[in-house]
């Protein structure tokens, strides 16, 4: 993984010093609260309902064991001994004191981490496929370009006071696991159909929030040496023309929607035509320098699916279920990537204790070349585990409560922090996720239902990605009561789609029954091998709507 050189290290140290001075100037009154706010946000510091929250960047979701141990330490020393992984592959500490932030940032800098641009109206932390570098369906590892964009976008002089936040995601695989179509910019590494050269297909104007939109193609093929100049051109058009009169209409998706993708493309191309990419892009040697950090580890030459692995699976059905459900095919024979679920039944999605972090760090050192990935579904991944060591790993994880075999299943629920923490929330998210997980706790039943993504947001800002949940749940407030709106048929992957609303809002206690009714329609009508979301696409929303509304017509809601 990427390691800071002396320039990166000096930059992050300078940033800590700068933020410390900004805090002092705020306390002295030289900066007003309004002036200080974007500065603290661009350093990851939010004011939540009960305390300050610090959001730490985990660029493209890649962490070392050493970094994870430092996060565990920070959690113990400055928070309540746990942290929360977010849908943007970051980590949040929810009980921080403002006075401690400079010291925490300094501890992060010690392990080549920071909280830069994890919030605010700037280019945010770049996200990527959690299986980058190991996925069998990958054209190219997206991490080097994600790192290049991280550096280019850091403290950008022109783009640090944008109309609104700006999120970029990258994938290099055939299957989109980074939800690139619901980002302000989505980059897909593609092969040119004629030359075979790899470059980028660029999507723009995707996003969730109160106006969910799927991104549109702005450039089908961008040669690699043009990337940063093209991004500069696109950001310039947005910075100049994005709306600033209404924060809810300020994202680039609204600009694209209002002027149309053709006009937007024409403006970006006109701007791009005036730039000299060679003056903006990193030179080939620098690109190669970054890429070398992501070279594959020293894999052993192993047989695939070795006898010891097969025997362990045959002898232990629980291990077998976990290996099947949480395993992900690795491009190297004899290895497996594996998801460590942070969705234990009844737990808060994405939360992990400091002790849990240390366990994962130790196991990463022992079994996965010291590397950990964070997924946008709020789980962790060990990317490089030998199949013949998977059983040992599973036993160690099980002892620490981290071996829940539900990756991608109905209890692998994405949920934002919601009204339990967040100042913006209109309803609770975590208790809904917990209630649903308990309802569908039976492993056999989860297996029978198969892959099904439930995503829960506690307000219209959609941090829980409910629009792209196969089943989406949006918590609102109606006359002082929490009310949950259910959507169906969203998809964050290749067939990206925004879910449709099924009917009137429900009270929290009615949500599990309603989800049961939707699942029952699927189980009754599915064809062999058909996934939930595929059945929804084939059957349409109507049969689900009918079942959903069957028992709530007499409710007050």
């Amino acid at each position, binding site marked *: 993984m990427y390691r800071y050189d002396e320039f990166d290290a000096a930059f992050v140290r300078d940033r800590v010093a700068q933020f410390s001075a900004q805090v002092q100037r705020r306390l002295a*009154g030289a900066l007003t609260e309004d002036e200080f706010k974007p500065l603290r946000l661009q350093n990851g510091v939010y004011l939540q309902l009960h305390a300050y929250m610090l959001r730490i960047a985990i660029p493209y979701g890649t962490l070392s064991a050493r970094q994870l141990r430092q996060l565990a330490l920070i959690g113990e020393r400055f928070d309540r001994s746990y942290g929360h992984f977010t849908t943007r592959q970051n980590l949040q500490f929810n009980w921080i004191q403002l006075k401690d932030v400079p010291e925490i940032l300094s501890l992060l800098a010690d392990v080549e981490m920071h909280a830069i641009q994890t919030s605010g109206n700037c280019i945010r932390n770049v996200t990527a496929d959690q299986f980058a570098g190991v996925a069998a369906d990958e054209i190219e590892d997206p991490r080097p370009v994600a790192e290049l964009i991280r550096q280019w976008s850091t403290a950008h002089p022109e783009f640090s*006071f944008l109309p609104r936040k700006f999120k970029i995601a990258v994938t290099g695989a055939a299957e989109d696991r980074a939800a690139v179509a619901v980002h302000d910019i989505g980059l897909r590494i593609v092969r040119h159909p004629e030359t075979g050269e790899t470059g980028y297909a660029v999507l723009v104007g995707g996003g969730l929030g109160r106006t969910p939109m799927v991104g549109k193609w702005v450039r089908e093929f961008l040669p690699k040496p043009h990337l940063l100049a093209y991004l500069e051109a696109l950001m310039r058009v947005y*910075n100049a023309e994005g709306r600033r009169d209404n924060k809810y209409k300020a994202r680039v998706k609204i600009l694209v929607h209002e002027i149309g993708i053709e006009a937007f493309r024409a403006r970006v191309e006109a701007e791009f035509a005036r730039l000299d990419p060679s003056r*903006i892009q990193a*030179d080939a040697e620098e690109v190669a320098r970054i890429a070398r950090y992501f070279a594959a580890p020293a894999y052993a030459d192993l047989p695939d699916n070795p006898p010891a692995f097969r025997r362990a699976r045959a002898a232990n059905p629980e291990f077998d279920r976990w290996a099947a459900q949480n395993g992900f095919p690795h491009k190297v024979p004899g290895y497996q990537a594996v998801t460590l679920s942070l969705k234990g039944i009844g737990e808060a999605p994405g939360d992990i204790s400091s002790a849990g972090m240390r366990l994962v760090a130790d196991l990463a050192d022992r079994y996965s070349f010291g590397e950990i990935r964070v997924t946008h579904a709020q789980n962790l991944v060990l990317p490089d585990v030998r199949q013949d060591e998977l059983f040992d790993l599973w036993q160690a994880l099980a002892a620490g409560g981290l071996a829940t075999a539900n990756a991608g299943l109905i209890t692998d629920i994405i949920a934002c922090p919601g009204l339990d923490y967040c100042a913006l929330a209109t309803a609770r998210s975590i208790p809904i996720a917990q209630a649903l997980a308990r309802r569908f706790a039976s492993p056999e039943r989860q297996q029978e239902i198969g892959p099904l993504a439930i995503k829960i947001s506690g307000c219209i800002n959609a941090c829980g990605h409910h629009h792209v949940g196969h089943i989406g749940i949006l918590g609102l407030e109606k006359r002082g009561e929490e009310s949950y709106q259910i959507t169906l048929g969203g998809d964050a992957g290749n067939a990206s789609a925004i879910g449709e609303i099924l009917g009137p809002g429900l009270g929290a206690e009615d949500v599990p029954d309603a989800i049961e009714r939707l699942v029952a329609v699927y189980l009754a009508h599915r064809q062999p091998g058909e996934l939930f979301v595929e059945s929804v696409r084939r059957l349409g929303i109507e049969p689900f709507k009918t079942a959903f509304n069957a028992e709530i017509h007499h409710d007050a809601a």
Partner: protein
Amino acid sequence: MTLLDRHGFRPDPFRRLPASEIAGHPAVIVPLADVQAGLLVRASGQRIGIDIANTLPAEDAVPLANQVDLIAIAFPGFADGRGFTLARRLRRNGFRGILRAVGPLIPDQFAYAMACGFDEVELPDAVATRQGEAAWLADLAIYSTSYQRDYARGQNILDARREARQGGGA
């Protein structure tokens, strides 16, 4: 209003006047609507600047850019970053005169403003007093390096790495 450049606070040589009143003043800023009238009566050696909104398309400002000595771009609020892009576009189009940011910027934007091509900042007096000169100069000093190429800033990291590779053979 208080004027500031990379050396600190300094007196403003420019006065804001309508075109009809500029005679006898060595350096004036006229409203955009007045610029043609101002240029018509401009005395030899007299410096003329214009005030423009940050929403003015760069193409509309370009024809004027070769005729004026100063362009002052308004920042209605410090969080409105359009002025950074407009400054970049004017510089790219060859404007070599003085670029001034006008409005309640904060010291933490000073290095960004300079990197985008501004030369100076004109602040409301109350803002200048509250924030103080030292904070502005500190912002210029805090980063020895930056990650973006092609901005008017000190050393950028990408080129520094290249030099290190070539110089040190690493």
